[in-house]
Structures are given as C-alpha cells and as structure tokens.
C-alpha cells in the first residue's frame, strides 16, 4: 500500500490529529473520458482500491463478480466495481453519469464517470459541467483516436482548465518511451488546433498500478508527477473564481418578519463584505451590503462558492433571479445572445419555439434561432444545419423575453451557462453556453410614432382583438371564421381574416410542414396579427396551430386580454369523415407527410377562452357564441 494513503498508523495512534488534517482538505471534481476499452473503469476502480475506499464486503462481492462476469481471468476486474445499474452491468457498458468518491490526506475527490461513445455526448457534457479537471485516457497501443479528439473538444467546450492526457496500458507496449512521446506530440498539435494551451501527459498502467499513486520502476524515463500527485496539487477553480468581480444570484428572499429581509444565494465570484457597494441587476438599483448573515454568526467576508444571506442598507426591490453584484463591476444585461447549444433530447430543436431558459436562479422564456452552424464533434468542422438533434452541438442566437444579467461562459460557468426546458414535457432538452450579447437589440431602436394603437382603435370605435381559431384540418375553422367576419362586418366592425391556406400562398410560401416550419409559420402570423391589432383591427385567424407552445407564444405577443383562443373541437374521426379537401385520404395513403392528427401531433388547448363543439353547434350558432364573447 502506498504511503499517500498510508494513514492507518495515524488513525490508530492519534485520531484527533488525523481529523484535524482531514478537516482542512480541499475538494477537486474531475471527469474521466475514454471508453471501456481504454481502461477507464479500471482506472477509477484502481483509484478507489488504492484509496482504500473498497470495504471487505464490497471486495468480496467484487471478487465473486470478477469470476462470474469479469474479463481479467482470475484477477480482480476493477471495472465491475464502477458499473452501476443492473442492465448496464450485464451489457458491460456504462450508459449514464455516475459519481465516485475517494479521498487522500490532501483532497477529497469526486469523479464523474461517463460513457465515451458519441451517442453519449450529452452524458459527457453533463459530467464535464461540474468538473475542474479532465483525465483523457488513451490506449498506448492505439494512440490519439477520433474519440480522443471528441472528448478533448467537449472538455474544452465546457471550460475545463486542466487536462491530463493519461496514456494507459503502457505495460502492453513494453513501457516504451518512444510510443509515449509520439502520442504526446500527436496530441499536442491537435490540442493547439482547438485552443487547448496546456495539458499534462502521464504514462500509466491502470491495471498494474504504474504511475497511478506513485512513480513505478517500470518507466524511469518519465520525470513528471504520478497521476495522484497531480490531482492533489493542481490549482482549484475556486482560486481563480476569487479574482472575479463579486456576483450572487438571489435564490431566496428570506423574510421571517418585518424586521429582517435577507437575500440568500451562492456567491459565484469574488468576495463580499459589509459596506461593499452593490448593484442589483437587471433593475440597476444600488445599495450597500449591511450584513453577511449565516447560522454560525455574522461574517466579515464571504467568498466565491459560499452560500450566504446578505442584507442591504437600503430597502430596494430585489427578488429571486436577480443578481447582486459589485457596483463598480456590474454584469452585462441583455436579451439576445450568441451561444453554443448542446441538444440533449430525442425531440430535435425547434427554432423559434419558446422554451424555458434557466440560468442562475432565474427562469425566463426564450427562443433559439436556426443554428448558424452545427459542429461535427469528431472533426470540429462547421456544418450547415437547420436544427440540432440529440447530441447535436451548434452555435445559435438565443432571444429571451426579458433582460437577464449574465457573464460570458468563458468567464463564469454559473453566470454564462444555461439549460433549456421544454414547456410541455418539462424535460431538460439542452445546455447552453453564452458567448456574448448581440448588439442588434440595442442598435435597432423602436421608432416612437405620434399616432398610437389607442388612436387607431378609437377612430374605428372598437377594441382590437385576435380571435385565434385552432383545430384539426377540416374541423371547420375557416368556415366559422368566415361566418364570424361576415357577422362582424354587418355590425360595422373593422376586421381582417388571416387564413392558413391563404398565408401560405404569399407571406409564408417558403415554409413547409415540418415541425420547425410550422413554428415559424405561426410566429410570422403572430407578428402580422400584432401589427393589425396595433392598427386597431379585430383579427380572425384560422390555422391548425397544433402546438401549445406556439399558441402561447402568440398570446404573449398581444396586450393582455386581446388574445382569444377559440378551440374548434372536432374529433379526428369526424374531421377525417368530412375530409373536405381530400387531405386525410392522401395522408393515410402516405402521400402527405407530417399531417396533423395522422403522423404529426395536435396538442389541444387546455383552457381555451372559447370551445366550439362542432357536433353540437351549427356554424351560425358557433359564430354567435364567439361574437357574444367578443362584444358582450
């Protein structure tokens, strides 16, 4: 057993001294990248074993498993220790992110263990997001492979500053320095090409234990540190974080009574002390820190990484999601960004669809434009792309529905990293890293006009509105919309009917029927409808508009109360039976793709303002019902 871990003597002799040492340990989180073939699980198993993190009963199970499932003959198969879930153990692969723990006298380590294959890119990105160091494993017999390049790119993309190139299985190449040097040279030229400035190459054998916890006799030519030495001494991110300006997203406003109002959060950068001038973003209000409150008493200082509660000298508005930051170095605030997006869901990105975007402690609505390009993770080539699918990585503009404070991801993971959440399924569908804010929003000013929307509406003697008919093809939207418009015209109302088919002859003739095109179709119609309500009109629309997210997007564009969702509720069987345009027959015959209700979903409104049951109401009655809601 190695002396790094050889603490039994101290534990037995003087437990208080041992505890004192261990209470001053720091912590390093790292990720191991490579496949089962590279000996990744073996390496982790070896680290746990050498760190005495394996107990006797676990070892007994491991030995039994090694004989039953192992690939090392009678030797212990360390990989089995690491592979978690039952299904995976049988398949011999790790398909998720697993976290392992071990400690030495100097540090506690958390290892993110993720699979290496391309189809598990999202898992690797997840594991890398919390890691400060990456161990990239290379099989000495095979050298730098496509997957080595992919792993390095991802690790660099996620902002990991420390990369270890662990050239494993040196025992199988006779511990040959030439092999090692050639691999390192090869890797160095690649690393430079993706912007990795420095890395630490270490020749190891995870199976035999060479250069893992200490330098072995097998590679006297190697002059660097053993892997464990390096892990124990590499500079932690918290050191670099301390040099950043102070920022703390407010997670929770603590108000036990009228006398106390504290803002609780985790400091993401820098330090804060009572008396420091601070600015609250995005509101821009300023104050100074009164107290740094903790359960263990007030503090004279708090630093990056600590979870504290601040009170401010002034009673200013500040709520969850806002960021308290140093007044002299405030964060940027913007609502449009360029970002790298990693897509993590089976359902592809729909450009233009609103998703929830969570960053810091705030959640806002956001849309992603069609990618500028996607990245081939094996070659780092830029590819033209209209969307991103599972494990796809691309660069795109992101627009939020309000200003958010942020920092570029390269400066702060906490303030520049975000996730996207599907509004319907609530699944986390993507991770994003902000590059910079787009200036477009700031440079294109809104031209104020003297004749406003109220004036337009006033001249027409009416209240503008959007009657948004949604329903299956053939449900009766256009027929009812037409009847509504005729009746309103008789009542001297100024109206305009936007019909799905008609719009596709002009404004939207460049769009097809894929999900992405459907989203864009509705977005444009929404914008046109908004201009028309500004002009004072009552707008009637007849679009299938199958997705809830887009109907809600249009609702959000309008003034409160102006959007009236009318669900033309005709069951699929009935719409198909009518089949006025013969489209269902074509779709059933496979001649028409992406047809709503057949091979493309329709998400019925949950709480529409008006629901028209076409099996119970005539066209005339339906129109009257709608108008009664519009003009009470």
């Amino acid at each position, binding site marked *: 057993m190695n002396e790094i871990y050889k*603490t039994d003597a101290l*534990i037995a002799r003087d*437990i208080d001294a*041992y505890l004192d040492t*261990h*209470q*001053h340990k*720091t*912590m390093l989180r790292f990720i191991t990248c490579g496949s089962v073939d590279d000996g990744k699980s073996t390496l982790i198993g070896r680290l746990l074993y050498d760190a005495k993190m394996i*107990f*006797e009963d*676990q070892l007994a199970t491991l030995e039994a498993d090694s004989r039953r499932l192992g690939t090392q003959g009678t030797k212990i198969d360390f990989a089995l220790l690491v*592979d*978690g*879930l*039952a*299904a995976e153990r049988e398949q011999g692969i790790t398909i*998720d*992110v*697993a*976290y392992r723990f071990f*400690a030495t006298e100097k*540090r*506690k380590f*958390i290892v993110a263990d993720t699979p290496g294959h391309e189809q598990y890119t*999202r898992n690797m990105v*997840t594991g890398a*997001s*919390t890691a400060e160091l990456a161990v990239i494993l290379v099989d000495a017999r095979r050298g730098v492979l496509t997957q080595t390049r992919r792993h390095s790119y991802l690790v660099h993309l996620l902002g990991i500053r420390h990369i270890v190139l662990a050239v494993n299985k040196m025992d199988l190449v006779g511990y040959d320095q030439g092999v090692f040097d050639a691999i390192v040279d090869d890797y160095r030229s690649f690393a430079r090409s993706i912007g990795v400035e420095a890395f630490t190459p270490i020749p190891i054998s995870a199976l035999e234990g060479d250069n893992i916890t200490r330098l072995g006799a097998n590679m006297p030519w190697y002059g660097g540190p053993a892997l464990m030495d390096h892990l124990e001494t590499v500079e*932690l991110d*918290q050191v670099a974080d*301390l040099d950043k300006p102070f920022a703390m997203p407010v*997670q*929770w406003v*603590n108000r*036990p009574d009228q006398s106390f109002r*504290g803002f*609780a*959060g985790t400091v993401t950068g820098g*330090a804060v002390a009572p008396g420091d001038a601070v600015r609250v973003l995005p509101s821009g209000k300023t104050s100074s820190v009164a107290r740094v409150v*903790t*359960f*263990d008493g007030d503090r004279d*200082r708090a*630093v990056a*990484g*600590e*979870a504290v*509660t601040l009170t401010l000298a002034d009673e200013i508005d500040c709520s*969850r999601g806002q960021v308290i930051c140093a007044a002299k170095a405030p964060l940027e605030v913007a609502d449009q960004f360029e970002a790298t997006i990693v897509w*993590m869901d089976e359902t592809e990105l729909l450009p233009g669809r609103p998703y*929830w975007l*969570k960053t810091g*402690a705030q959640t806002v609505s956001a849309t992603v434009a069609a990618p500028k390009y996607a990245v081939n993770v094996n070659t780092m080539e830029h590819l033209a792309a209209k969307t991103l699918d599972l494990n796809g990585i691309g660069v795109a503009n992101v627009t939020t529905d309000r200003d958010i404070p942020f920092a570029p991801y390269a400066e702060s*993971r906490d303030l520049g*990293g975000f*996730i996207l959440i599907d509004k319907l399924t609530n*699944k*986390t569908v993507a*991770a994003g890293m902000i590059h910079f804010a787009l200036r477009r929003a700031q440079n294109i000013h809104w031209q104020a006009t003297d004749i406003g929307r109220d004036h337009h509406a006033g001249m027409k003697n009416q209240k503008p509105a959007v009657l948004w008919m949604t329903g299956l093809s053939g449900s009766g939207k256009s027929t009812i919309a037409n009847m509504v418009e005729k009746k309103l015209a008789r009542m001297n109302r100024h109206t305009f009917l936007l019909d799905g088919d008609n719009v596709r002859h002009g404004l939207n003739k460049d769009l097809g029927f894929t999900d992405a095109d459907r989203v864009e179709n509705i977005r444009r119609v929404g914008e046109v409808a908004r201009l028309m309500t500004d002009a004072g009109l009552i707008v009637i629309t007849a679009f299938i508009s199958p997705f809830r997210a887009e109907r809600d997007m249009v609702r959000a564009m309008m003034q409160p109360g102006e959007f009236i969702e009318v669900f033309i509720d005709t069951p699929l069987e009935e719409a198909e039976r009518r089949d006025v345009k013969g489209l269902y027959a074509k779709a059933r015959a496979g001649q028409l793709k992406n047809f709503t209700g057949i091979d493309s979903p329709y998400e019925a409104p949950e709480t529409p303002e008006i629901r028209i049951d076409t099996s119970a109401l005539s066209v005339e009655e339906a129109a009257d019902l709608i108008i009664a809601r519009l003009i009470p």
Partner: protein
Amino acid sequence: MSNRLTHLQRLEAESIHIMREVAAEAENPVMLYSVGKDSAVMLHLAKKAFFPAPPPFPLLHVDTTWKFRAMYELRETAAKAAGMELLIHQNPEALERGINPFDHGSLHTDMWKTEGLKQALDLHGFDAAFGGARRDEEKSRAKERIFSFRTASHRWDPKNQRPELWRLYNARKARGESMRVFPLSNWTELDIWQYIHLQRIAIVPLYFAAPRPVVERDGLLLMVDDDRFPLREGEVPQMRSVRFRTLGCYPLTGAVESTADTLPAIIQEMLLTTTSERQGRAIDHDAAASMEKKKQEGYF
C-alpha cells in the same frame, strides 16, 4: 477566514444551494426525516439554509413502529429545536395487519416504508421530498440525480433521467408528478461523521458504544429493544458493549461490538473497519440489484 474552502465547506454550500432551490421552486416541499445521522446532518443544513427563519417546510417521519426507542425520543426534540412541524405517517393497512419484521420479511419494508412513503406524499400533496441518501452508499445511487423526477405513481426511471448540469436544477413538473431531492448526494460517510463532529450535531445515542442487551441471530447482533422481540428457544439476551453504524428498524439492524463512545473514536473505528456501512442492514442482502429495483418502485 481563509479564502480556500475546505471540502466540508463546499459540500455544505452545495447542500444549502439545493435546499434553497427546492424551497423556491416547489409548491409543497417536505423533508423526509428518518432520525439517523444523515437526517441529522440534513436537518442541520436546512436550519443553516434559511437562518434566521426556520426551514419553510415540515419534517415527515415515515414510521414503521419498529424503530429503536431512542430514535423516537430524539425525533421530537430535534423537530422542536428546529422550529419545524413534525408529521408522522404510519401505513394504516400495515398497522391493522400487524406487519412486522419477524413474521413478514421483505413485506415489512415494502408496506411500512415504500407504501407508507407513497401514502404520506399523496396524503399531503407534497411535490418535492428531501431525502438524506448519499451516492457513496450503493451503486444505483451513484447514478441518481440530485433532483430525481418521479411519475405520478412515484416510479423512478433510471434510463430516463434529466441531465443535470452545473448548479442548475430543473424542478419543473406536471401536476401529480414529484421530485425526490438528495442534498447529501456528494457526501461520503466520513464527511457526515466529520461534519457531525465539527458542528456538534445531536445524534441518536445508539451510534455510541454502550452495554446493550443483544442476541446473535443469522450473523447479525440484534438488540432486544422492547418486549415485542420474540426470543427463539435458547436465546438469552446478553449485555455487550455495542453500537450501530446505521439505524433502521431495530429487528433488522445489526449492531457491531465496539467500545467507541466518542465521535473521534467512532470515526477512528469507521476508518479502520473493513466492512461497508449498509452491511448491518438486512434489506440489502437480497440481491445485488435489489436497491435499484426498490427505487424504481418508489422506495427512497
């Protein structure tokens, strides 16, 4: 203070961060409280997270009626000291049928704990429940997210977990669905003990060695904690100096012979010991993948 955070300071900050996210995003959160050492640490962290206010959620003890008496005693005082409401749930069906660990084997855990927990969560409409599980305890836990999503029927789908990046936790869910949240995910057993030691957190005295009446049965040292313990023929409880590394239902929890009666002594013993923590629990011996299966069914 030093600029460099120790590993315990970082773990503490992470746990507090997680608890605040849940308090902010869940509609009706609750903290599962089992009275064990991990629960004690979790409760202590909750007090820190919301100080000077009390934690904005109640404690829930899913009781089996078969816990050690010393656990019931600490339960009341700990909740009171934290200024938190304590909810206790006992599965009425298990109570009626007299389900017990002596006669009913794994049904005991299933009905009192798994079913009892689901009942309690449904009864109160809790949409987020904190649990004290750690990833180092068991292999299937190593892969579970900190925010672990459950369907309306409380099932966990290990193949369909949400990616969890940075410090960003997705707590969104539909009505009826819920989250189990594990703020101690990244703590190890040693971290827990060190933290208890440093922070002087009150724990059940059973963790400390003392003379206790025990019988040896099926390789476990079981404590005869009350007169419900059916002694087999020839079994006579003996006073031995023992302590418990983990606490559950007393008839299912094995003691270890020990003289460690201080925290440093316990830590010393733990570090020098050669068997893992859960070995004292009968529940894990069924099958290698037993915990994963239990978790899919809704066990914590």
